């Protein structure tokens, strides 16, 4: 059995420990099913608006 496939099997047969980034509802769904989840509250800078994000980046230089 190739090594990476073995690692995948080990992962899938182990209890899940999840880090959820962004949408909190995904974390809540897993929590409701008893999965261990750490939620990271994150959203793209400036709500994903590329023009404003670019301005922010330049103003931070």
């Amino acid at each position, binding site marked *: 059995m190739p090594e990476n496939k073995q690692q995948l099997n080990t992962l899938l047969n182990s209890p899940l420990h999840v880090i959820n980034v962004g949408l909190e509802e995904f974390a809540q769904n897993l929590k409701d099913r008893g999965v261990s989840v750490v939620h990271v509250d994150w959203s793209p*800078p400036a709500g994903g608006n590329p023009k404003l994000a670019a*301005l*922010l980046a330049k*103003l*931070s230089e």
Partner: protein
Amino acid sequence: MEKIESANQEALRRMLAGDPVLVDVIPASEAIPDLREHMILHAGPPIEWASMCGPMRGAVAGIAVFEGWAPDLDVAADMAAAGEFEFHPNHRFDSVGPMTGMTTMNQPVMVVENRTFDNRAFCTMNEGLGKVMRFGGNDAEVLDRLRWLRDSLGPSMGRALRALDGIPLKGLVGRGLAMGDEMHQRNVGCSGLILRAVAPALAETSSETGALVDALSFIGGNDQFFLNIAMAMGKAITDPVIGIEGSSVVTAMSRNGTDFGIRVSGTGDTWFVAPVEMPDGLYFPGFTEADANPDMGDSTIVETVGLGGFAMGAAPAVAGFVGVGAASEAANFTRTMSQITVGENPEWTIPAMDYMGVPTGIDIRLVVETGLAPTINTGIAHKDPGVGQVGAGVVRAPMACFEQALVAFAETMGVS
């Protein structure tokens, strides 16, 4: 950019160094010499009659009758529609006003002096709750109360404050935070502290027992009496922050019931305006969201200096009153606002949050980057003229104001 960081530190330094003192109550025409007949100052960014909401129109009609410019409300409204009144934002004249924010020649205004920077700011006196002009009320009861403020309480308070050489506000607000006030929707502690400070001087300078009883009863019976003082204080603290080159700190947030506007230190007197939002809150018995007018007033000046929604952690009782959830969640509002501010105020601390200082100095860059709009605690006016307050709630400043401000601010920094 290093220049922005140091400019914002200077903005924060000026805010924290302010020494606001309530020094007087005088007629608005004396405080603001540019005030003329038929000139009305209002809350929020600039607006004309055609765009005004119901409560603002009701207040305009009422104040025109109060000033003797019109014989009745209908004539006053016709005069306004015909362009016979001149409208300006309070902020243009070192002034602020709650909700509709009417300021005209013969109203008494409280004077707060910032003794560090030698500037003064003004606000009318709080009328109490319910049917009042700031919520668009304009009937005989409302106008009679305004006349009493003009003829009795205003002059009495002025005499008392002059005898005291003023009441310093910085320490008083610090104590108010420890007593559960956030200085926007809860002013019980600070109103009591003001009454305690001014009562002996009111008695000493009064020549008529009946007027003294009325004055003490009005202040003692009005839990929001301090709100207007806090607003003048906020204006006195923020005005020295206007015009710092390279500063992205907000110097004013304000609404006129139609639009929400902000001003930023580095862009001077320019307003960045977007449609105002509807508060999310609780309603008095018999009223619902269908009765509500969108958000209104200059009172957001208290959030601009770190109070109100920014100090919600000090006032868990307010969380329930404005309908945002459990008292235990109040601290989360304050922690969230600390993500969009330059620093904390070490003299205005929240005991229940391990003496964390209130988040101070809103940075438009942080607002746009995080998507966290300032949280504002607010009263809710009925959408029709003349009805008054129907509830209280929380509203977010529109993100569009901050996005526009960011683009304009970047231009001042040579960035596009």
